[in-house]
Each structure stands twice: as C-alpha cells, then as structure tokens.
C-alpha cells in the first residue's frame, strides 16, 4: 500500500470554512470526530467525489482521485469507495437483498467477501425479502452498512454507521469492523460522535471543529493530549497496548502485560501472546498514596504524577501519570488533589476499575 | 334592406374566393348590414345545422345536403342550385394543360391526389371521371386522398403529389394559376356537380337572408361565380323559385 491517503481541501460556505491537509495511514481506521456541523459529512462527500471541491487534492495510495491543478477528477463510480451515508439511502425499488446485491454484483461478486457472515453479523437475514420502507430505523442502517461492506471497497467511508443502534447491537458490530482492516486490509474513515466507538476502532484520529482548528494524529497520542482533553470532556482517557500474558479460566480473566505494569481484563478469546489495545478512561482511574488492600479493584499499579490540567468543570482536574513506559490520565477532584497533597513527581498508586475496561 | 340586420352564411370551401366578391358586392347595396361567411366542409355544416347551428344560409358543394335538410324540416326554402362545379387536372410542378386523364397511367405520376370519394363531392366526380377514362384500375394504387378539395389542392401545391384533380374554382385562383397549369376535365365524364343552397329554418323571418338569396340569383352574382370557374348558373327548371 505504502503512501497512504492524502487529502487536501479547502471548503468555503457562507459562515463555514474548513481547511484540511491530511496524510492518513494507508491501513487501519481513521476517526473523523467533531461537533455537529463541523464538516465531517462534507469531507466524506469530497473524498467520494460526490462534491467536487475546487482546488482539492485527494489520493489513495498511488491512485490520484482528484488533483485540480492537473485537471484530474476521477468520478465517484471509478473510486472504489464503500460509502455508508448518514441517511441510509437504501434504494426504495429494491428489496433488502437487491440493495445488498447492487454493489456486490458491480464489484464482480468478490469471493473475498464473506457475504453470509456479514448478513448474519448484522442480523438482517430475516429481512432479505423486505422493502426498505418496511424496516425500522436501525434495520435500515444495518442494511446500509452491509451494502457498503459487500462492495469490496478500497476505502470505507462510514458516516455515523451505528447512530441508530442499541448498545448490544453496537457491541456485536464493533468487533467486526475492528477485524475488517486486519482481515481485508481496507482502510476506513469513520465519522462518529461517540468517543467510545472511536476509541474502540480507530488507529488514527482527525479532530474537526475545535477552537484551534484541525488536529490529527495516532489515536493513543490524541487521546492522551492534555490540550485536547476538553474536546473529549468526560470521555478523555488513554489507550494502552499490551500482550496477553496468561488466561485464568476459573475467574474468567486474562492478564495483559504492558510497558509499565499489567492489568486484568475479562477473559479474551485471543491466544497468549496476542497484542491488544485497551482504553482507560480518565474518570475510571483513582489515586491512592498507599497500596490499597482488600479491595475489589483488581488493577492497581504504581505511577508518578507528571502534570495536571483543568477540565470542563472546576471541580475536577485531569492528572497525567506515568506508569512505567505508559502514560495514564486520571480525572480526580480538586479536593482530592489537595487532600492527598499531590504535585508533579508524587508517587501514587493508580487504581483502575477493570469492569470499565472496554472489551 | 333593414339597417342593422345580420346573417351568417355557411359556405363550402370551394366558394372561398367567389363568395368574398359576392359579399363585397352585396354589401354595397346593404352597407348597414352585417354578413359573416364561414367556409368549411359541406358535410360538417350539414351535421351542425341539424344541431341548430346559427347559420342562416347554407351553400353546399353538393345539393344533396340541402335536400336532406329540407326533408328534415330544417330549411325555410327549397334547395336551389347556384352553380355547377367543374374539376380539373392540375399540377404545380409541370404544365398539365396538355394532359388528359389517360396520361395518368404513366407511372411517373407516382402520387395522384383526389378528394375522398366516399364523402367529398369533388372526389366522387374525380373517381367517376377516372373510371370513365378507363384508367381507374391503373391509378388506384397511386391515389392519395384529401379530406376535402382544399386539402387535395395543398397536396399538389406543396409538390407532395405530382398531380391531382381539384376544383376549377381553386385552379383559377391566381396563387395556383401562376404555377404549373390545368386541364379542364370534360363534364360528360362525370355526374354534374350540382351545388345548391337553402335558407335555414332559423332565418325564415330574416329579410336579409332572403335578400342575400335573391342577390345570389342576380346576374351580378352569376357573373362573379362565372369568373371563378363556376358554370351552369342558370336555375334548372326542376327547381322552382325559393322566394316567398
């Protein structure tokens, strides 16, 4: 793959301006994150070639999709994108099956795509003969996801694909999407309002509509940045990467070793040695000065206070810690900061409620 | 004549030019009166008069229609002949004055226009003439039919039909006479085309209608009709004077 995805565009509308100059990794999922009206959909539309933004430059790998200086503009249907629009946009004249088949047939019925698997995973097997107007809102959204996946795109564009879905359904689809880029190596741009989803899926993040313009970077770094933490409000936290060290089948736990400690998480299906990613919310991390005893909290590790920053509420501080080689964020009360007499350099124990660990 | 009287005259399309002159002449004697002339298909007028169309005089290309109106009790006079129509062979693209009906057998006349013999009086006479000349069988497949004689003339005039059989009154019109030429078809090759008129029941008490009918019989009107190619304008003994 190599070069990655290049997007450079300047969008001007009355009362709205967006300047992007991004180089995104050629693999993995990039989250587009930003408030309503910040230009996420507009950006996907430009990438898909639905709107021709003057002066834009869009390239995926060595394929140039738009380069206005050279008068080059590849029309949408020649761009191998799988685009799930914000409104599902199912064809009303086709059954669910017809909708799914539409892109699948045009992609030459790719055998690399596990059609039955996708249909089953999205729970739409019983709906295949229905018309879109006889579906519920969430059902429509699932069909649209399946349709985009089945067209074997080179780039997936997903505009809030899970917005109308319940937590249980989301929990089913998320791991599948997460596996997508591992098995099919399809990069994706993923628009979502839910930081949890983003954290779960994305490798890279583009933050739109913040007060200081566009930011992007690998997800773990982005999430750990104190200066951006307010954008994420209550959802700030860090990502840690570790390796499965052991399984405990009596307590149904797995131990994950990472640079600076170990945590226990609910039993994982993956084999020992597999690398995994976990998100630790700042709000789930509490600090003590002495190692706690007789507590239900499993994950406790020594750490050093690095810095602290104000949050969206004056009651709270966001504390940056270093646990071995791994940074952590903890959201604690002002009062506790003072009561524990914390300061940069303080030695503390960080307790993480394991149940809060995603996964 | 009464000041401020008014009549509407329904006249067969072949009368277009002659009738305009007749009305102009009539108006000189009746300057305060109003005469509207409507040209159209004789058959259609017949149908309309049966449905109480507001026509006071009806000049048909075929005297059979006025006769039928009398039978239906819709006329205020007996039908009277005002002219005998004649048919001619005419072409807009070549001089037809030397041609005879027999020449139509020549395949270079790939399309020959006549009026529809089923209901147009001129068409029926054309068919009779062709049959009498012995060429009907030879030209039949090359005939195109106009709905009325004016339309037939347009087929020929636009060159879409090389030649056609139309009314003499049309062929004598300057617009047509300037191009090509025509040959009169001998009257004995077909039934006489007796053109007749009646006063309709609606005009029974309209003195202007009566005056117009009387004017039609006048030598002045006859002369005009003659000029436009209508012959035989003397009243036939078979039909008595209409005036009451």
């Amino acid at each position, binding site marked *: 793959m190599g070069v990655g995805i290049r997007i450079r565009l300047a969008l001007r509308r009355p009362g709205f301006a967006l300047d992007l100059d991004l180089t995104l990794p050629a693999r993995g999922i990039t989250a587009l994150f930003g408030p309503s009206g910040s230009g996420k959909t507009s950006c996907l539309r430009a990438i898909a070639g639905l709107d021709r933004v003057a002066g834009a430059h869009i390239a995926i790998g060595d394929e140039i999709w738009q380069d206005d200086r050279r008068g080059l503009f590849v029309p949408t*249907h020649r761009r191998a994108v799988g685009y799930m629009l914000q*409104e599902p946009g199912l064809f009303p004249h086709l059954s669910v099956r017809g909708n799914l088949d539409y892109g699948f047939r045009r992609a030459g019925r790719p055998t690399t795509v596990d059609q039955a698997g996708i249909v089953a995973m999205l729970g739409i097997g019983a709906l295949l003969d229905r018309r879109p107007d006889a579906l519920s809102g969430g059902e429509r959204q699932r069909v649209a996801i399946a349709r985009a996946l089945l067209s074997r795109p080179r780039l997936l564009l997903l505009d809030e694909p899970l917005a109308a879905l319940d937590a249980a359904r989301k929990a089913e689809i998320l791991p599948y999407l997460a596996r997508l880029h591992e098995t099919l190596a399809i990069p994706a741009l993923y628009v979502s309002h839910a930081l949890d989803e983003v954290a779960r899926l994305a490798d890279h993040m583009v933050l739109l509509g913040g007060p200081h313009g566009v930011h992007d970077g690998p997800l773990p770094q982005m999430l750990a940045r104190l200066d951006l933490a307010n954008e994420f409000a209550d959802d700030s936290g860090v990502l840690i990467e570790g390796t499965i060290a052991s399984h405990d089948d009596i307590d149904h736990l797995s131990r994950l070793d990472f640079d600076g400690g170990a945590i226990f998480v609910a039993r994982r299906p993956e084999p020992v040695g597999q690398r995994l990613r976990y998100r630790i919310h700042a709000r789930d991390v509490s600090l003590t000065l002495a190692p706690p005893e007789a507590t239900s909290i499993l994950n406790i590790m020594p750490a050093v206070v690095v810095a602290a920053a104000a949050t969206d509420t004056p009651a709270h501080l966001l504390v940056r810690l270093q646990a071995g080689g791994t940074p952590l964020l903890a959201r604690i009360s002002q009062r506790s900061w003072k009561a524990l007499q914390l300061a940069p350099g303080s030695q503390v124990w960080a307790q993480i409620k394991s149940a809060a660990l995603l996964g | 004549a009464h000041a401020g009287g008014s009549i509407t005259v329904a006249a067969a399309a072949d009368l277009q030019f002659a009738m305009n002159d007749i009305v102009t002449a009539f108006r000189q004697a009746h300057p305060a009166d109003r005469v509207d002339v409507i040209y159209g*298909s004789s058959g259609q007028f017949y149908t309309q008069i049966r449905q109480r169309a507001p026509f006071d005089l009806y000049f048909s290309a075929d005297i059979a229609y006025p006769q039928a109106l009398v039978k239906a009790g819709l006329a205020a006079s007996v039908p009277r002949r005002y002219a005998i129509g004649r048919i001619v062979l005419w072409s807009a693209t070549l001089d037809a004055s030397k041609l005879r009906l027999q020449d139509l057998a020549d395949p270079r006349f790939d399309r020959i226009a006549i009026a529809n013999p089923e209901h147009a009086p001129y068409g029926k006479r054309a068919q009779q003439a062709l049959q009498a000349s012995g060429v009907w069988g030879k030209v039949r497949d090359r005939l195109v039919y106009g709905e009325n004689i004016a339309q037939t003339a347009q087929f020929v005039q636009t060159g879409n039909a090389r030649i056609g059989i139309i009314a003499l009154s049309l062929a004598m019109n300057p617009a047509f006479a300037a191009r090509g030429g025509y040959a009169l078809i001998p009257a004995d090759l077909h039934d006489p085309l007796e053109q007749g008129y009646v006063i309709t029941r609606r005009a029974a008490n309209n003195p202007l209608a009566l005056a117009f009918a009387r004017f039609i019989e006048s030598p002045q009107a006859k002369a005009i009709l003659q000029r436009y190619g209508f012959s035989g304008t003397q009243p036939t003994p078979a039909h008595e004077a209409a005036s009451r």
Partner: protein
Amino acid sequence: MTLAAADFAALWLTLKLACTVTGLLFVLGTPLAWWLARSRSRWTRPVAALVALPLVLPPTVLGFYLLLAFGPHGPVGAATQALGLGLLSFTFSGLVVASILYSMPFVIQPLRHAFEAIGNRPLEVAATLGAGPWDRFFSVALPLARRGFLSAGVLGFAHTVGEFGVVLMIGGNIPQRTRVVSVQIFDHVEALKYGQAHALAGGLLVFSFLVLLAVYTSQPRLRNF
C-alpha cells in the same frame, strides 16, 4: 352495425402506428427528458419550451407545415430525396415522424418530472456502489421513474391513436397504408354513415378502456414511504 374489413385494417394500422410511435418516443424522449431534468445548462429552458411548442398549433396547420417541409422543396424532403428515401409524405414513416413530433410533449413532460422527483441521493448512492452513468440510469433512475413512464406511455399512445389532423394532412388517407382509425371514423361521420362510426368509435373506446385499465392495474399501489 358490425365492423367492415376496412375498419379492422384501420384498427390494425393504428395499433401499429401507436406502438411504433410510443416506442420511438420512449427511445428519443427519455434521453431528452433526462437532459432537461438533470443538466445545469442554460439551454434546458429554451429547449423545454421548444418541445412543448408544437402543441399550440392546430394539428391541421402543423400538418400543413410538415407537408411543406416533407415536400420536394422542403428541407426534410430535400434531405430524404438526397438520401434516396423518396418523400416521407403519404407514407407510414411520414406518419410516424409527424406523430412523434406532435406527441413528444406528452412524453417529455411526465418523464422529465419523474426524473426530477428522484433527486440526487439514489444516484449518488449508486455511484458509490460502483455504478457508472449508464448503469445508474438503467438500474436506478428508470425503475424509480416507473410511474412517469406509465404516464408518458399512456398519454403518448392515446394521443397518437386519437391524432387526426396531422395524420390526415401528411398521410393522404391511403387504405392499409395511412388510413388510421381516427381518419376512418371521421370519414364515416362525414359520409353520414353514423352507424358505422358509432360501432368503430365504440369499439375503439372499449378496447382503449380495457388497455388502460390493464396498464393501471398492473401498477402497484402507492407505498408508505
């Protein structure tokens, strides 16, 4: 009064003409309507107005001008003669051409509005799924404009069946070749053969009613959407 052989010939010819014309109208009208509906060119409006224009002329007059155009001195006639096709007047092909011209607006308008009603969304979605312009047109636009096609077909077909003035002028009323049923009924009326006119008109009406009913019944009901 039963129908004569000539009546059946006229009916058959009419059916042939109406089917040919409707088919050709779809073929010619669909791209034009598509262009009118979707192009952002500033020519769309004049062209749209132009298409509707033949409507305002009385048919016989339109027929007269066509006769001029088709004649040996007219532009069309000159062209067809140069191509060795002879003249279009008094031929079935001529009828077809004239009827197309005359019935075009009845096909263009419903198609155009049906295409406009689709909106961009379904076409955009189709493009993202890899469908090119032609493919999008056939797989999305056509099916979604189905009702427009029905409407266009019904109006175009019926109008061709009923057309009379133009046909009379351009066709020359030749039995078996250009004497369609509308002319035939008219001739019956003119010849005061009312019985035959009633029978033929009645037959035409019943037949057309059944065809229209069948067409409408084949349409699915309106959906909730």
